[in-house]
């Protein structure tokens, strides 16, 4: 092939497509190999390897806001001392990495595998001691089944219900912030949220709500989730506002329609 011919071939419309295809195959294939490699790496919770892997993930995904040594910056707070529980909550519920700044960082599809989340948590926990991820003793299924739901309900109403609603349906705060709905949230994430106080939620440390208290609260929430309202449709569980709106619009509207029909002449 002469140089002239090669140049012509480069200009052919198919050349661009071929180059893009080749690029996709190489990067995609490379990623597949790489993620295979991650999947097959066995890691224990505290090994130096895990911490190193976590640091790599951190530098690639988190450091732009939180600083390359997790010291914090204009865009994100310092993560020194927030502990593994905080990382597991923020990353495990998809809140981190944050997509955009706003009144509140939103829950979204989780961006990392469980293993990667654990590596990130191990890295952040290695920086300075902080709250750790709760053990199965408090958030496992057996633990929740043994929890005292009625005590949990009382504690929930005293400590949590003003923001999260009496059945955990969530509620509004100021300036676009809100307390999220708790239905379907994993037990360990609820536990972690109480320990770390993410975003505008206050902290409920172990001398305020003991681990037993926290377990009871989660048992209560799981009980409410599993036992639908005996009163029928809950209308979001939001209480008098939603119920009143329904009555005003549909029931009163129905009465108005009937009244108009009663007064109308037959044709």
């Amino acid at each position, binding site marked *: 092939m002469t140089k002239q011919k090669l140049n012509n071939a480069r200009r052919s419309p198919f050349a661009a497509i071929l180059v893009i295809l080749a690029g996709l195959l190489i990067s995609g294939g490379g990623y597949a190999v790489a993620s295979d490699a991650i999947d097959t790496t066995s890691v224990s919770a505290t090994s130096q390897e895990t911490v190193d892997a976590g640091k790599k993930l951190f530098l690639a995904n988190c450091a732009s806001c939180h600083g390359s040594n997790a010291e914090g910056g204009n865009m994100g707070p310092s993560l020194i001392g927030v502990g593994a529980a905080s990382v597991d909550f923020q990353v495990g519920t998809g809140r981190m990495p944050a997509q955009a700044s706003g009144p509140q960082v939103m829950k979204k599809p989780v961006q990392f595998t469980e293993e990667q989340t654990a590596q990130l948590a191990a890295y952040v926990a290695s920086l300075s001691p902080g709250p750790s991820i709760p053990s199965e003793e408090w958030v496992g299924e057996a633990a929740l089944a043994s929890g005292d739901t009625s005590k949990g309900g*009382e*504690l929930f109403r*005293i*400590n949590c219900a*003003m*923001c999260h609603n009496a059945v955990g349906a969530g*509620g509004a*705060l*100021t*300036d676009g*912030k809100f*307390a999220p709905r708790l239905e379907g949230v994993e037990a360990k994430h609820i536990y972690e949220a109480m320990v770390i*106080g993410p*975003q*505008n*939620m*206050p*902290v*409920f*440390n172990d*001398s*305020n709500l003991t681990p037993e208290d926290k377990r009871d609260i989660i048992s209560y929430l799981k009980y409410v989730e599993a036992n*639908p309202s*005996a*009163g*029928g449709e809950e209308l979001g569980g939001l209480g008098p506002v939603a119920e009143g709106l329904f009555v005003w619009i549909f029931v009163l509207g129905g009465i108005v329609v009937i009244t108009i*029909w*009663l007064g109308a*002449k*037959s*044709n």
Partner: protein
Amino acid sequence: MSDKSKSLAKAEDAEHDYSAGLAVIAPDAVKDPGMEPHRVRMTDKSEAHEKRAARQVAALFLFSIVSSAFALYAYFAFPIVEGSNASVRDNTLLLGLGAAFGMLAIGIGAVHWAKTLMPDAEVSEARHQTRGSEETRARAIEIIDLANKESGFSRRKLIRRSLYGALAFFPLPGILVFADLGPNPGDSLKHTMWKKGTRLTRDPDGKPIKASDVTIGSVFHVIPEGLAELEHHKLEEKAKAAVLLVRVDPSILKESEERKDWSYDGIVAYSKICTHVGCPVALYEQQTHHLLCPCHQSTFDLTDACKVIFGPASRPLPQLPIAVDAEGYLVAQDDFNEPVGPSFWERSVNE
């Protein structure tokens, strides 16, 4: 309109002669537009429509029968099972729906019947004069006189006066029960259970709180020591004494000179009772340090003596002065220095 109804509408007789009394009659008053022209219904014009309307009415009545029968069926088919709330819901809901539609369909059928098939001539009937005829009035007086004579109401003084007495006394018990609206609260609205040295304890179990337990960003829902063990008026006392305990970075607290020693190393305690209408203000935003009342969105700035920054509340939340005792537990220095909660008439008296 038929001739008959026309004549009824225009009927005027001597009885309908109204006095204008004190009313000012406008000379250019709106004229009575009279009856609007009568529209002939389809069911009067076409036999097919009439038959269809008759079938609709019958169908509604049949639907009523089906609904009532369904209510009977539902009572047995969805029995109330001991311990199952869902069974109570299903039973009452379906029974109620059946009975409701059974009744509603009769009503709709009757209205539909009347509107489509019964005669629709418009008739106006003038009101009767309220004053009876002279003859009727004379007869009424005659009857009253006779009753007076026969009962002896005027003649028998003893009976008449004792009856007056009885009538005067019988409403008294009804008036007396209004005493239960009292007694006046006195100064109980101005004092709570907090005293010098009362420990701050956790709601609901009454466990005392150490200053070291309250980490930065923590919120404790607090009741005074001894409240959990009260046997009488527990809720009344709690409604006055409930406190929210928060620890923030001491450097962000803006404290006035006289309140400098009311907090302890960034730990502040404020009444949880909103100064607007008394809802519990307990929505604490850890990053903005705003306290939000869930009822009417009054917002208080915790770092600035809980002054109102939004909403209908007019006063800051009262602050509870706190200190630490020899064992490290948080205690109150004194009661609140102002009445907690919403305004009341005598609030400013003797302050």
